């Protein structure tokens, strides 16, 4: 059984049996309000807004990973490909009920893309037409931070950023995820 099918099954099972559901509008409106407020607070400095969203996500991810592990009961992934399937088919599934497509692997298996066919955070959203938001704001940037925080807690340093977003008029919403390194945990293996 491939790791993708296995992950799909785990995600499906958890979504059905273990997850408390919440009204989607509540999520969309809450998140939308946060982003709009940040845009206001930072006076339309969208780079800073992106950064803040990423930071918020990072803090969420560090906590959320425990819930993910406690619920899913999965062990450590054998490689980064398996990790990608877990993120898409279990993680996104249980927290947002979506399963972004994992694709565009580099040959060293250290970088992949997540293509979001749907994105509950961005329902009903239209970016402000001040001529800059379309080019500068990554509306769902919190997700990049969530992945970074969550994976850091399981000893993976990654870098994640959006490369396209349907909100900006692109054809797809795509996030690029790169493995920087595996963090050697605890004490370094001593000599002899």
């Amino acid at each position, binding site marked *: 059984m491939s790791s993708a099918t296995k992950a799909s099954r785990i995600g499906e099972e958890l979504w059905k049996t273990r997850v408390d559901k919440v009204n989607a509008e509540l999520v969309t409106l809450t998140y939308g309000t946060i982003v709009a407020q940040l845009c206001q607070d930072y006076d339309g400095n969208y780079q800073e807004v992106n950064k803040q969203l990423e930071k918020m996500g990072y803090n969420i991810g560090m906590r959320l990973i425990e*819930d993910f592990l*406690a619920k899913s009961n999965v062990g450590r992934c054998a490689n980064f490909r398996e990790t990608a399937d877990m993120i898409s088919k279990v993680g996104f599934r249980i927290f947002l009920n979506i399963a972004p497509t994992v694709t565009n692997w580099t*040959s060293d298996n250290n970088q992949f893309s997540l293509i979001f066919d749907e994105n509950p955070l961005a329902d009903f959203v239209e970016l402000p037409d001040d001529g800059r938001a379309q080019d500068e704001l990554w509306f769902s940037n919190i997700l990049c931070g969530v992945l970074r925080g969550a994976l850091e807690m*399981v000893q993976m340093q990654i870098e994640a950023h959006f490369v396209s977003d349907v909100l900006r008029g692109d054809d797809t919403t795509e996030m690029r995820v790169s493995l920087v390194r595996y963090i050697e945990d605890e004490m370094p293996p001593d000599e002899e």
Partner: protein
Amino acid sequence: MAVFSLIIINKAGGLVYQREFQPGLRKLSTNDYLVLAGTFHGVHAITRSITPKLPLVATTTNPPIAPTTATTPTPNVTSPSSTSTPTPSSSSSTYTYPNPGIPATGLECLETDKFRLTCFQTLTGTKFLLFTEPTMVNIDVVMKKIYELYADFVMKNPFYQLEMPVRCESFDRNLQGWLRGRT
């Protein structure tokens, strides 16, 4: 009820939580608990590092272990299956764990005539130490539930600071309530 007490150790070896679940159970001093947590953390790491390792057969397929040299991401254009080629220069890479697909764990269980100490380490490095009667069964079920309660009432409490001592009343309440309900 066969569960005596619970200790939670953060990934740095610091004591973050300690509770008894039997009324009147003799307590150690706070300092003793801190020492216990730190010592266990060290012993746990040692037990993992002394896991016997087998010599790596030259023709064996690569164990799915992360390349330890990943700090400098050299552009690797080889086929996907050869990302972790063992380098002969490092002596540690010529040995492998028995059954390399499963990572080595540390101490999981410690038993005397009077009690059993079960350790569960999460993938994030937090350790849950449960003191029970040696005859108690299904400790893994209890452990899993404790982890879930921890994920809910500690990690999801926005005012809990990560890696700091756990002072969450609702965690205490739910934990005690659930353990009491089991008997």
